[in-house]
């Protein structure tokens, strides 16, 4: 048990330690490798945690729900650090990043990993809030790191909208505490997930409802749900690509995880309003809105940012529908989207470096000029658009089929949104990947391993999901309830 506790602490201590060391170390080669090494150690610890589970404490908690996300987060964190090593080398070469900023970048990367692990591990709603705020501030700094007009504007917008969201979430958190206090007494117990969940049936429903509205709006801003999504495309487009990958693949999930935890509280209280319809509505609106917005994009990173809004909408919709099957589909989609979208951003990062631009109109014929990269991007877009037999097809199919049985009308709207998004993605993909290559094109010195590792997992999951994973997800889906 001590062993398990140590692993749990290690998940936080390793990134924190790495961050302070990286802030001091000069030199590209050493720091990039150290960054990878720290991420690898964190991933190993996360994997060990699946075997040895610590007893929940007052501050930290490991259960079936968060362990899935911890493993996913540390895995994508590790592969992104590998991608980042080759991406950043090029940025240094062309002088977009100075050595001082590189140090800052690597330190911030580890602080972000620390904050996300803390948000997932936290057993205390206040602690979780602090962690998500820390993650927000870190990413704000990272988005502004290039110091161009666009990057500064994006970072400022993200900072303002993100902090408003975070502030609303804190108000909701305070209201949850006030709801819990009459039942659980004062102090730390009234803020621990483990205690809250078992006592939730006795809370004042009206107070809990009000709290959830604030929490959904607050953390929903961080998830990027329409109409609170305005920061997301800018932040993705203007920051370094590894950060776009981590934002889309991980941070949005972490914010959604917070919403899910609070949703469980409301579900456990018979008198409270059903959180499902609110989430279903926000999810559908986001998916539909983002699908239409996909058509008018001229910037390739911005386009995939809108695709992230679409997919977060689908996931929120699935969890809003609730029930074992839809929850299962939502979880699966969360994992598949993380893997696919970060793989796409890896590809897009290399593409924009090779072509020296992010404008879709200036990129064409990638499969001719850079065959491996081009076909990798094609595979990624095919996956994200939901073509069989890849993983996203399976999870989207599950979302749609499980909702068709209960709410056919809503399912039709969702299918419509999916088809519209599908059309937009293929329209753009055609121009980017095929035809005559134009403009400048430099060879790419990049490791394709992270990208193909992700896509390989997504492809494998589409064909065959191991029984262990299915059983695990099913168990979590039961936990999440209706």
């Amino acid at each position, binding site marked *: 048990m001590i062993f398990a506790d140590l692993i749990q602490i290690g998940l936080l201590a390793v990134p924190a330690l790495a961050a302070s060391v990286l802030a001091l170390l000069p030199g590209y080669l050493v720091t990039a490798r150290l960054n990878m090494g720290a991420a690898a150690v964190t991933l190993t610890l996360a994997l060990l945690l699946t075997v040895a589970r610590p007893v929940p404490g007052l501050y930290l908690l490991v259960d079936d729900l968060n362990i899935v996300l911890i493993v996913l987060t540390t895995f994508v964190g590790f592969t992104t650090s590998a991608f980042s090593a080759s991406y950043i080398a090029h940025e240094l070469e062309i002088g977009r990043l100075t050595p001082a900023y590189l140090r800052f970048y690597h330190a911030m990367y580890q602080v972000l990993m620390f904050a996300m692990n803390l948000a997932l591990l936290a057993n205390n709603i206040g602690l979780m809030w602090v962690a998500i705020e820390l993650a927000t501030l870190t990413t704000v700094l990272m988005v502004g790191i290039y110091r161009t007009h666009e990057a500064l504007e994006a970072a400022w917008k993200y900072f*303002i909208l993100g902090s408003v969201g975070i502030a609303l979430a804190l108000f909701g958190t*305070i209201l949850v505490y006030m709801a819990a206090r009459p039942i659980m007494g004062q102090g730390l117990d009234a803020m621990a997930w483990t205690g809250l969940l078992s006592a939730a049936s006795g809370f004042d429903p009206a107070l809990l409802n009000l709290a959830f509205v604030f929490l959904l709006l607050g953390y929903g801003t961080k998830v990027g749900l329409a109409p609170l999504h305005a920061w997301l495309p800018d932040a993705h487009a203007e920051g370094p690509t590894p950060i776009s990958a981590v934002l889309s693949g991980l941070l949005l999930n972490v914010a959604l995880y917070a919403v899910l935890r609070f949703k469980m509280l409301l579900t456990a209280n018979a008198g409270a309003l059903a959180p499902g319809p609110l989430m279903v509505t926000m999810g559908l609106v986001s998916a539909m809105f983002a699908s239409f917005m996909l058509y008018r994009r001229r910037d390739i990173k911005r386009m995939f940012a809108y695709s992230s809004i679409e997919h977060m909408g689908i996931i929120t919709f699935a969890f809003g529908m609730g029930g074992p099957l839809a929850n299962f589909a939502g979880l699966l989609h969360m994992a598949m989207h993380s893997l696919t979208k970060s793989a796409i951003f890896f590809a897009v990062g290399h593409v924009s470096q090779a072509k020296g631009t992010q404008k879709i109109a200036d990129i064409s014929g990638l499969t001719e000029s850079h065959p491996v990269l081009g076909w990798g991007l094609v595979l990624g877009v095919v996956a994200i658009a939901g073509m069989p037999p890849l993983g996203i097809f399976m999870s989207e199919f599950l979302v749609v089929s499980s909702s068709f049985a209960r709410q056919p009308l809503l399912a039709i709207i969702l299918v419509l949104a999916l088809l519209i998004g599908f059309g937009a993605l293929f329209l753009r993909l055609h121009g980017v990947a095929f035809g005559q290559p134009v403009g400048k094109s430099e060879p790419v010195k990049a490791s394709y391993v992270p990208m193909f590792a992700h896509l390989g997992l997504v492809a494998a999951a589409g064909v065959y999901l191991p029984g262990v994973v299915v059983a695990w997800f099913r168990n979590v889906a039961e936990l999440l309830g209706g």
Partner: protein
Amino acid sequence: MTRGLAFDVSHLLAGGMVLASFMLLYQDRVFSLLRVFALHALVLALSVAWQANVQAAPHLYLTAVIALAFKAIVIPVALHRIVVRLGIHRQLETVVGVGPTIMFGMGLVALSIAVILPVLPDADPLAREDLAFALSVVLLGLLMMISRRNAVSQVIGFMSLENGLVLAATGAKGMPLVVEISVAFSILIAFIVIGIFLFRIRERFDTVDVGAMDSFRGERR
């Protein structure tokens, strides 16, 4: 009798914060805006100290001291110096006129009272009224962030919003210190972020007017 006094004073102080929030809404000069914000933080510090007294929760005095030292003194002084150094102490323009903004603010106060009071009918009135005032301060802070185009005013709006959150957190009886410290801490971090941004924005645009950045939206060519 003491019960009545406790209620009246905390009511007065929390109401004072709402009033200070309204005063923030119509300031049209940077320095007076900073002074009113210092007043806002001062009232918050008094209010938190009073809660510490009423609830017999000594750790809340710490929060009060943090609010007083950091938000009523350090931040306004530092922002004052930044403004002087950057030479931007001219008039602030607002997006909407003062009249409509104030009217809208009054609507927000009515809304927060209408939302909070029915939800907590049997809770102690102290916590209930405090929470209604705190929500008003939060919403007024939001309004300020929306109605101003200037980066300094947006930052002040954000900090007044955080003051409202601290008021809410201290009003919730017995809420662990974790949260209060974290709030103060996050403001510290937020301030560093803001400082860096103001500096960078100055470096690039020669103005702290956020409106000047609109033309650099990535989507346009």
